[in-house]
């Protein structure tokens, strides 16, 4: 018993044994391959199929199905291509032979549109095949052209779409890719082509049932074209976004890598404060973890972009591996952050009281105000700290004026700083220094405080001037940035207090030069 297959040869239906069908199918494929360079290969094949159909019909007068014997007999009659090779091979003109030789060596290529690898019209992938580059790069180049030339690039694309033929036959496809013509390639291509033909036949069947919407009708072509353009636009938008992801991620990644290999110097080279926070934090190891922590999501963005542009897929194991690495980097970063926070966990205060001795009953307060550039400062709680000479300096201290508990002018300097423990914090506060000069009755403050330490531990300084009852201070305009929330009997704003004489009464500071309503 044999299973049979139905085939259509030149319009006649035959029942054919399955094994016989395999042989016949192979035979026809070999013929197709043999005639692939022939101008009217399809016609020759049709003629041969017609003849085979005729021979089958002769043999089927007394039975129903074509058997293996029949097929073998028919093939013997028609002959293997090798048997008429000699009669055809020589027919090719000299030029053609050279061409084929080049082709076989993968030398000569022709520009075709590659419909199989197309996004819109297959122009980019055709170009990629011609120049033997990845289609990814040809699309990147097109994308750049789009930027440089604006609307010119799509115009060129459409021109090429119209002008370039698409690679249809096996030979053309091989010519397009310049692949070596060998059995494997041809077999691969023939299989592809057979699929295409099969689809064509299916389409043709539909044509009879749907005359208007048939495969080749004008209407259908228009619809096909529109669908192709729309999907093309979507694909194009997708790949534009993908390219954007790749470029964006690539640039970021470049910086991250410079960061990782230069131990934070490149990223923070304009910020000299970093080394004062924790000299051993931004060492190479931490920088590597930080780079991984930031870099891995960027790589993910790039991969996502690649997937949009080129449909590059990453194996699940790699994804998991990368994710685990990211978690590890997060862990180490948190650890480093913990190390840093420990450095700041305790706070200490240090108060120094200085007596200001003056004969006068009026003290003229002013500040030696220099416009300092504090671009590279760390800013915390209103205090800015920046490197200064060998150590650090800060600004942002505030001056208050209160009633003295005794009969002296006192300047109270209250320094605050942090450290790993109380003792270290206290040590930090002792490094904070503040200078002023006293010339007769002129008290001139510096506009900064010094930190005699390499380490920044949120050093702060607050100033309070104690004024005995009955004494007067004059607040110069240069104190604008220094005074803060000085209580007075008039409830006047700090800024309004400048340029006036203030006398300490029992009730509090009273203006003696203001015109009060």
């Amino acid at each position, binding site marked *: 018993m044999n299973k049979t297959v139905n085939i259509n040869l030149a319009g006649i239906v035959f029942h054919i044994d399955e094994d016989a069908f395999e042989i016949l199918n192979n035979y026809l494929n070999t013929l197709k391959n043999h005639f692939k360079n022939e101008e009217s290969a399809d016609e020759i094949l049709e003629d041969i199929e017609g003849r085979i159909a005729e021979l089958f019909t002769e043999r089927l007068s007394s039975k129903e199905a074509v058997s293996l014997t029949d097929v073998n007999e028919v093939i013997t009659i028609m002959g293997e291509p090798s048997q008429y090779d000699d009669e055809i091979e*020589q027919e090719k003109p000299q030029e053609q032979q050279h061409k084929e030789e080049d082709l076989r060596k993968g030398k000569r290529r022709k520009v075709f549109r590659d419909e199989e690898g197309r996004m819109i019209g297959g122009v980019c992938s055709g170009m990629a095949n011609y120049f033997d580059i990845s289609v990814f790069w040809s699309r990147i180049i097109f994308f750049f052209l789009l930027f440089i030339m604006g609307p010119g690039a799509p115009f060129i694309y459409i021109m090429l779409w119209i002008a370039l033929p698409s690679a249809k036959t096996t030979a053309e496809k091989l010519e397009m890719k310049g692949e070596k013509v060998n059995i494997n390639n041809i077999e691969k291509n023939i299989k592809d082509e057979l699929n295409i033909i099969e689809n064509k036949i299916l389409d043709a069947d539909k044509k009879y049932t749907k005359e208007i919407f048939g495969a080749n009708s004008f209407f259908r072509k228009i619809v096909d074209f529109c669908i192709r353009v729309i999907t093309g636009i979507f694909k194009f938008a997708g790949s534009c976004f993908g390219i954007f992801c790749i470029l964006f991620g690539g640039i970021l990644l470049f910086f991250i890598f410079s960061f990782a290999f230069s131990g934070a110097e490149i990223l923070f080279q304009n910020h000299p404060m970093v080394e004062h926070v924790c000299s051993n934090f931004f060492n190479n190891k931490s920088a590597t973890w930080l780079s991984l922590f930031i870099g891995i999501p960027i790589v993910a963005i790039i991969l996502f972009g690649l997937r949009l542009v080129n449909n590059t897929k990453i194996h699940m194991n790699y994804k998991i591996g990368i994710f685990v690495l990211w978690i590890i980097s997060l862990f180490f970063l948190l650890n480093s952050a913990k190390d840093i926070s420990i450095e700041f966990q305790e706070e200490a205060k240090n108060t120094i009281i200085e007596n200001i001795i003056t004969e006068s009953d009026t003290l003229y307060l002013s500040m030696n105000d220099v416009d300092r550039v504090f671009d590279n400062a760390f800013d915390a709680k209103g205090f800015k700290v920046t490197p200064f000479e060998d150590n650090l300096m800060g600004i942002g201290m505030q001056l208050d004026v209160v009633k003295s508990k005794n009969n002296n002018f006192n300047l109270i300097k209250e320094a605050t700083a942090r450290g790993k423990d109380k003792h270290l914090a206290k040590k930090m506060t002792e490094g904070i220094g503040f200078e002023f000069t006293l010339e007769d009755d002129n008290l001139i403050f510096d506009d900064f405080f010094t930190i005699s330490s390499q380490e920044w531990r949120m050093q702060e300084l607050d100033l309070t001037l104690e004024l005995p009852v009955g004494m007067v201070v004059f607040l110069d305009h240069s104190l604008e940035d220094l005074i803060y929330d000085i209580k007075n009997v008039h409830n006047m704003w700090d800024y309004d207090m400048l340029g006036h004489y203030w006398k300490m009464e029992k009730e509090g500071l009273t203006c003696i030069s203001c015109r009060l309503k």
Partner: protein
Amino acid sequence: MKIENTQSQMRKGILEYCILSILKNGEAYPSDIIGKLKKAKLIVVEGTLYPLLTRLKNTKLLQYRWEESTSGPPRKYYSITEKGNTFLLELDSTWKDLAKAVRLTTKTKKDE
């Protein structure tokens, strides 16, 4: 130099000449032509003929018409064109020259 190459070179031109000559006497369909060529032992396998016919048709030396067949698919009946006739006349004279040349040269060899 391969003997097969030389043989096929010789056969190739003759085959086209013979096909045109067969069709000179009236139209025929491939099986008729094959029958005659096989009898003359010019071809062994039928597959050889189809590309030749198509090529001759493409160069406008032959034309064909379809005819329904009672036993099988429709057949292509080939006939010679005017251009084909002119072509054939030229081949006739060439063949005569060649035959003469071959006769003469082979004869001399035998005599020696």
